[in-house]
């Protein structure tokens, strides 16, 4: 019988080792981030990680500032543990991201790490990052994108002309673990999302040796409309359900 549901976040990443490459889903906010899986990676304490994701993250201290600033338009839940948690704890040696820095005067943990030479940065735009991951999931070795020619991201990369326009060669990106967030799952690992929760999550599903999905709810087989399944279970190895009541930072550790 196929049953991808596992009992805890810790169990879901129990075989993660130092030096792993993690593809971590989400965009920048609480609604699409696999927070509890990030918490589990923090607890496990694995080091020398290569972190692949959209943002380097705030980390717990800056998160409080952001929470306060955003409060007039949006309540950030107390169980939003973002990638900055892993970076701030010194678990990350390399970031492959589009948004390592805070937009304002703050410095994120990843910025500090980069400035102090402790974290290596591979910067690119979101289109290239997600397409590299999709290539990894879909067996494409590399592709030519027009984005980035003549800029910092082109350094050291092959430039080639097609029909009079210049393109950069970009390579597929795969991970050891994809840690993604979804709304509902069934025991086959089929996933649906909610609103703008998708972002990098469906792209990363299947792009690593192991894909773990953190979901709001597990439903019976047959409850997900086959027309609306976004991520077919073939890409998903493990599914863990988020707690009904949010658990804050401190309790998670």
């Amino acid at each position, binding site marked *: 019988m196929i049953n991808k549901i596992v009992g805890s976040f810790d169990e879901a990443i129990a075989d993660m080792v130092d030096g792993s490459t993690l593809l971590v889903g989400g*965009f920048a*906010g609480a609604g*699409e981030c696999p927070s509890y899986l990030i918490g589990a990676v923090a607890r496990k304490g694995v080091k020398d990680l290569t972190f692949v994701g959209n943002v380097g993250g705030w980390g717990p201290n800056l998160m409080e500032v952001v929470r306060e600033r955003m409060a007039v338009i949006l309540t950030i839940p107390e169980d939003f543990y973002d990638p900055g948690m892993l970076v701030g704890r010194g678990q990350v040696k390399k970031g492959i991201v589009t948004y*390592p820095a805070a*937009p304002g005067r703050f410095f994120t943990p990843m*910025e500090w790490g980069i400035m102090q030479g402790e974290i290596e940065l591979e910067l*690119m*735009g979101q289109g290239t990052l997600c397409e590299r991951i999709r290539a990894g999931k879909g067996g494409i070795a590399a592709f030519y994108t027009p984005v980035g020619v003549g800029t910092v991201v082109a350094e050291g990369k092959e430039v080639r002309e097609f029909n009079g326009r210049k393109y950069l060669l970009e390579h597929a990106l795969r991970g050891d673990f994809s840690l993604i967030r979804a709304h509902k799952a069934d025991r086959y690992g089929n996933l649906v999302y909610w609103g703008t929760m998708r972002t990098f999550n*469906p792209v990363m599903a299947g792009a690593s040796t192991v894909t773990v999905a953190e979901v709001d709810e597990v439903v019976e087989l047959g409850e997900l409309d086959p027309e609306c399944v976004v991520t077919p279970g073939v890409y998903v190895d493990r599914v863990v359900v988020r707690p009904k009541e949010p658990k804050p930072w401190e309790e998670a550790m």
Partner: protein
Amino acid sequence: MPGERLDEQVMALRAAKEFQDGMIINLGVGIPTYCSNFVPPEREVLFHSENGVIGFGPIIDDPDVADNRMINAGGQPISKKPGMALMDHAESFCIIRGGHVDITVLGSLQVSEKGDLANYMIPGKQVGNLGGGQDLAFCSKKVIALMIHTTKEGGPKIVKECTEPITAPECVDQIITDIAVIEVTPEGLVLREVAPGWTAEEVQALTEARLIVPPDLQEMTLL
């Protein structure tokens, strides 16, 4: 003595005049966000946000109604609207990279006279953010740089050559600032409109790049 500088809302209003009926528009964070408030009522445009939504409604400013799972690329909560569609990042960037976005409005640190855009390095920091802006700048049918004309210190931001690292070369089609509307052409920057009370010379004085002043230079009309 020049006229007053336009405020951010009026700048956004001017940029929104570019939106034609049926267009797909992507708005960068900051001042460009305000453009969505000024779409002429007779025009139906669809806003695309690169985190995976197209055709969404107004930004929600009530935290009790807002949903963390329904946001735009600036992290603001958005409302649903009939005809909206959700998608993942790969599809969202097929839309962008494939040239299906009609207009992108982006903030900018510098624009060169060739239309080079520099907007990813954060001033005073050593690390920059590319986000979704680089794909948008490279691939949108029309790129509008919507920006304050000068730096906080009064220095030029419309320059001969960018000194900041560039996000995309020769991508900007139009520059809309708090004092002027400038078109990027193969011949150089053409001053199309000046804010009320401003002359071409006064705008040129705040612009490092040379501005071509055509005979039909107009005053910005905002309605």
